[in-house]
């Protein structure tokens, strides 16, 4: 570092350098820092896009207090892998039509990306994607979780998702009779 440089000038130089950066730094709830491509972050997350456009990105690490380091690492990993794979126009149109259009099937790499996650990591990621307004990642993670329910009985679903059965025997039997058609093998 140059010793005699005026402080104001150094500050100015630093600001210009930061504005030119092509990454943003995100800080997890437990204080870990992650760098992510600014372009990918803005393209994949409506929340980060808003923060970048609004200048509320902190160069020392933008606080994301709702997201733990494991989930944030996965978010950043996803953004970096995604960086060049889908044109932004396709993403924009898919998020606009989110309410009515059929969901797009995950791509092969996206499947692999969520397949390697532990159960807890997957649920943390789905919440992070939701919080950051990442429609595509939300699609991929929700799709993965829904696949875990396919072809399973209610008992098996409870087991997979560690759900406590809070129905009484009588309630369960009553509903089961109403829904008998849903228990055909498929």
């Amino acid at each position: 570092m140059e010793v005699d440089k005026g402080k104001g000038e150094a500050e100015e130089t630093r600001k210009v350098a930061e504005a030119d950066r092509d990454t943003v730094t995100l800080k997890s709830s437990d204080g870990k820092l992650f760098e992510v491509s600014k372009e990918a972050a803005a393209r994949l997350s409506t929340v980060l896009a808003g923060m970048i456009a609004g200048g509320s990105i902190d160069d020392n690490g933008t606080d994301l207090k709702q997201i733990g380091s494991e989930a944030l690492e996965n978010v950043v990993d996803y953004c970096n892998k995604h960086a060049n794979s889908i044109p932004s126009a396709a993403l924009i149109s898919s998020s606009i039509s989110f309410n009515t259009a059929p969901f797009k099937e995950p791509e092969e790499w996206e499947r692999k990306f969520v397949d390697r996650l532990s159960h807890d990591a997957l649920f943390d990621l789905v919440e992070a994607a939701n919080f950051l307004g990442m429609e595509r990642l939300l699609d991929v993670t929700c799709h993965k979780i829904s696949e875990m329910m396919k072809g399973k009985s209610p008992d098996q679903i409870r087991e997979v998702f560690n759900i406590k059965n809070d129905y009484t025997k009588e309630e369960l039997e009553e509903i089961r009779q109403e829904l008998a058609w849903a228990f055909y093998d498929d």
Partner: protein
Amino acid sequence: MPKVGAASPAVASVGDDLLGDIFLRLPDTAVLARAALACKRWRRVASDPALLRRFHSLHGPPPLLGFVMSGPPPRLFSVEGPDR
């Protein structure tokens, strides 16, 4: 499938809206019905009229039967089975 600890709060921590988003990805009403039997909260989310409208707009109209939500007592599905 990674083993989940008995105290894992993973599913419980996911809010109703997100759970609904997950249900919307299920392929048909049969899977949705079995999911609804897992616990009361899941049934409540799965039988939300707004969710069911979206479900049917995404997956096409229900064949022969569908979710009948009108009038008490609230029922997730119509009582009649499919004609098969």
